[in-house]
């Protein structure tokens, strides 16, 4: 039963992942990638990591929907109505990818892995939380700062009109000159 579930999820993850680069429709590609993520989330859940598995589901659904929006925004022919090849350097990439797979899989099969040390905590979620809030506090804080920096950086990069364009050089305009105003009136 467990083996069957593993095989199904593993096959789904890999096949959907490979199909991402085969289909013409951008929407289908995005949601195939989502399917691959969901299968991996299923595998993670099988190892007993409930919280982390569900967080992957939660994040990836949102991320892929956002991704689909961007795909359609920037790609020509997003619906894949006309098949077009978007590959370059296929042969070299195939060689590199195959070599990577052989090296990684070979390593996985040949290395003499150590025996299992210890058993899982009764509640891995609690263990994760305690660890993040004590021993791994530095990790958590770094992640937080990095995320914040990303938010600021990406907004600066992507925005066309910043607040100086909207509110004047001294930021003293009573209201912005936006065509569509938000709910708070800024």
């Amino acid at each position, binding site marked *: 039963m467990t083996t069957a579930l593993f095989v199904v999820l593993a096959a789904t993850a890999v096949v959907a992942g490979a199909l991402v680069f085969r289909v013409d429709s951008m929407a289908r590609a995005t949601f195939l990638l989502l399917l691959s993520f969901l299968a991996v989330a299923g595998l993670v859940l099988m190892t007993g990591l409930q919280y982390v598995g569900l967080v992957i589901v939660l994040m990836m659904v949102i991320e892929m929907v956002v991704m689909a929006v961007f795909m359609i*925004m920037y790609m*020509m*022919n997003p619906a894949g*109505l*006309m098949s077009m090849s978007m590959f370059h350097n296929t042969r070299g990439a195939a060689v590199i990818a195959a070599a990577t797979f052989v090296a990684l899989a070979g390593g996985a099969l040949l290395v003499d892995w150590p025996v299992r040390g210890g058993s899982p905590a009764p509640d891995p979620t609690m263990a994760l939380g305690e660890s993040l809030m004590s021993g791994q506090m530095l990790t958590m804080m770094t992640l937080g700062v990095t995320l914040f920096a990303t938010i600021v950086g990406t907004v600066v990069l992507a925005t*066309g*009109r910043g607040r100086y364009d909207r509110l004047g050089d001294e930021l003293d305009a009573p*209201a912005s000159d*936006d*065509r*569509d*105003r938000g*709910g708070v*009136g800024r």
Partner: protein
Amino acid sequence: MDLRNALLRAAAARPHVLVVGGVGTDRLRARVEQEIARRRWPVATAPADADVLVVVGRPGPELDPVIDGVWAAVPVPRSRAQITGEDEIASALEAAVRTLSDLTAQHALALRDGLPTAHTDTSPGEQDQHADGHDEQTGHDEHSGSHHHQEGGMELPGGLAMADLGEDRDGLVLDQLHVALGPVLPEWPSGLVVDVVLQGDVIQEARSRFLDLDLDDRDAPECLPDAARALDSAARVLALVGWDGPAARARGLRDALLFDRVDGSRVLEEVDDLRRRVRRSRLLRWMLRSAEAGRSEVLETLHDKLLSARCAVAGAGGAAPVAVDLPALDSRLVGAEFAAARLIVAVADPQPQPTLTRPADRGGAS
């Protein structure tokens, strides 16, 4: 067979109705809407949602193919009714329900393999008018996004066309779609079509026109009296902002003014009540408030409409509604986001004025 008949009959008890009318059918359309509301039948939002297609008045040569396209997009069980006079309404609706529950009739109406058969286009000029926002069912040859005779379009399999590119208001060059809004859209002025260039849901270009304007042999267009027209248009605005209750009330008041000989004082009271609710809704103000582009205008015009309706009911002779000409409407629509554009059209409530608005270059529109 009996079971299927029974099922059809039960399903036909509450049909969703799509009412389509050309220019100058407002009064008859109001009468039909009143009858539909009396029977508690819902009004369909789109052809896919409809069971009964009611054509009000006699559609002209421009509207006719559009209606055929809409009809092709209505899923079986379906029935179509043509209503040209007030006395036909009840019988036509009953006949429509009979058709809906008639198994053999529905078999004959069923679409071949789920796809509407393509209608042949008579002229490129007419082709645009099928694109009413639901057009991908109306034929094999159109795509809501684009018309394949538009320049810059790339031909795709299935006759669909690729979108053009154009700069958006944020400085990004993104896809543009050519869409014709109307004449079959919920809460849309009769017979109006606005050809727009859409980017996302922002309108980049707009050109509006009325269908079948230059028909000289049409019956004298029946116009609504001022009060009823103000209420009709207010009801549309309220329905578009998603406030169904007050919208239904405004429509009920319109019908009461038009068709029921009720005493004015009760109507007056209810109009005042409606005005108070609209004025007091802070959410409505929050939503419509803006410094720009006809948005605060939406709320003001809505207030004005209700006020003029009140004046007309009270016999004070409120100001006649200001006629909005189509070029002014077009310029207001440019740059508006889709929901805002719908409101702008609804408050403008343009009426056809053949002598004023007939564009000299009709051919150039498409």
